[in-house]
């Protein structure tokens, strides 16, 4: 179990050419918190995640991870991408071992066991289904005990039933790992099912936020659940 880091981003500004993607954005996450960022496509939510990972740099503003200013790649962060990005030439087990110190057999086995794929350790990624690939990607992300887990629409290309299963898995992995988790999605129901706090990104800044004070695992038939989904959805759709 690792300890989640605190994330504090202030006045972030990022533009590509003349197009401003993030303008004076403030964002924070408590240690161990599950924050979900929602918004329509092109609102800058993936860009924010890439800034937090240190893959990309902001023109202005600062990011602090556990009180330290982020320069370059964020060493405590691991990211799961929408397209999985498993290395096709490494077996499932070797993919999970990527970036782990040597002699990691036990750790790899343990992580694959947690995502229910212990028996696929010797398989090539090419023969896995989309959902299985994302399970491996999750195992790989959590193998090194990251303090910050960044999920960039990891369920975006999965079918509805697989998504439901994977949401349950993500919740239990987050719970076990203790990592501060930031999930980007455009699925509001997914946001309400997983988040401690939902942040709505619009036109490059944080427009609104909701604390989700519902018991976990969340009951989708609860009127409070659907009420919150409707309320958030209304704000997302509002021009």
């Amino acid at each position, binding site marked *: 179990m690792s300890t989640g880091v605190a994330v504090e981003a202030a006045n972030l500004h990022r533009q590509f050419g003349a197009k401003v993607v993030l303008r004076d954005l403030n964002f924070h996450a408590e240690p161990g918190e599950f924050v979900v960022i929602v918004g329509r496509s092109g609102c800058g939510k993936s860009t924010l995640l890439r800034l937090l*990972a240190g*893959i990309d740099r902001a023109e202005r503003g600062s990011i602090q991870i556990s009180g330290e200013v982020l320069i370059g*790649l964020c*060493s405590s*962060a*691991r*990211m799961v*991408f929408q*397209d999985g*990005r498993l*290395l*096709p*030439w*490494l*077996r499932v087990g070797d993919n999970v071992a*990527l*970036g782990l110190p040597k002699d990691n057999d036990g750790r790899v086995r343990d992580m694959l066991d947690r995502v229910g794929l212990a028996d696929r350790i010797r398989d*090539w*990624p*090419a*023969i*896995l*289904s*989309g*959902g*299985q690939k994302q*399970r491996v990607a999750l195992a*790989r992300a959590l193998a*090194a005990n990251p303090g910050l887990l960044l999920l960039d629409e990891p369920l975006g290309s*999965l*079918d509805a*039933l*697989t998504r439901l*299963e*994977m949401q349950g898995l993500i919740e239990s992995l987050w719970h076990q790992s203790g990592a501060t988790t930031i999930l980007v999605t455009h699925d509001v129901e997914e946001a309400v099912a997983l988040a401690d706090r939902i942040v709505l990104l619009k036109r490059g800044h944080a427009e609104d936020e909701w604390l989700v004070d519902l018991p976990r695992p969340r009951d989708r038939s609860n009127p409070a659940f659907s009420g919150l989904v409707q309320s958030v959805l209304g704000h997302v759709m509002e021009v």
Partner: protein
Amino acid sequence: MRRKLIPWLVPLALLLLWQVSGSVGWLSNRVLPTPAAVLAAGWHLGASGELASHIAISAQRAAVGFAIGGGIGLLLGILTGSSRIAEDLIDGSVQMLRTVPHLALIPLVILWLGVGEAAKIFLVALGVLFPIYLNTHHGVRTVDSGLIEMARVYGLGRWDLFRKVLLPGALPSILIGVRYALGVMWLTLIVAETIAATSGIGYLAMNAREFLRTDVVVLSILLYALLGKLADSVARWLERRLLPWHPAHAVALPAALPGEGA
């Protein structure tokens, strides 16, 4: 069973026709010796050990030339594929040199290096260098940038990034270059050995021509074909061996079994 036999019918019939027309005298031995005569020539040269020594010297030239040219091409390709500065510095010059047909250099190479081993190995190396270089460069350049980004986020250093991402990602393209280069290798060797040599398969053919031994000439041609085929088989074997993960070589397995969803 029948489907395996049918493709052999036409070549066998042609072979039979060739043999018969030679035997009854429709086809002069000067023009084309019969398959049996070619076989006999092969048997004769094989028994004296002459054939083996010619094959060995040709194979050695091919291998040494390939190793030198392929090695340089691979190194340069990796360098220019993974570094912008190296690409700006070297790639333009290599692309320019590539337009010179390497066989056109034969007169110059003979002047520089004489007719010894060095000249032939130099020509083979030069011919092999460019296809390997081009495919290596292209392979490294076109590795999915998403994978490189992922590897950086997961804390891979430069060496690991190269070893685990760039090189395996470029390997399918590199092996295409290898197959192409093997063809160039034999072609170069045939030309170089028929022009200036005192040993090797090409010499065997040219020497036989002077004595009007068409059977040995045809035998030499067949040997080149056989060696070419052998090299291609080795390349295919390498592909299966080095790219077991590649969908083209994977054992047929369904991508996802029903009911196994996630």
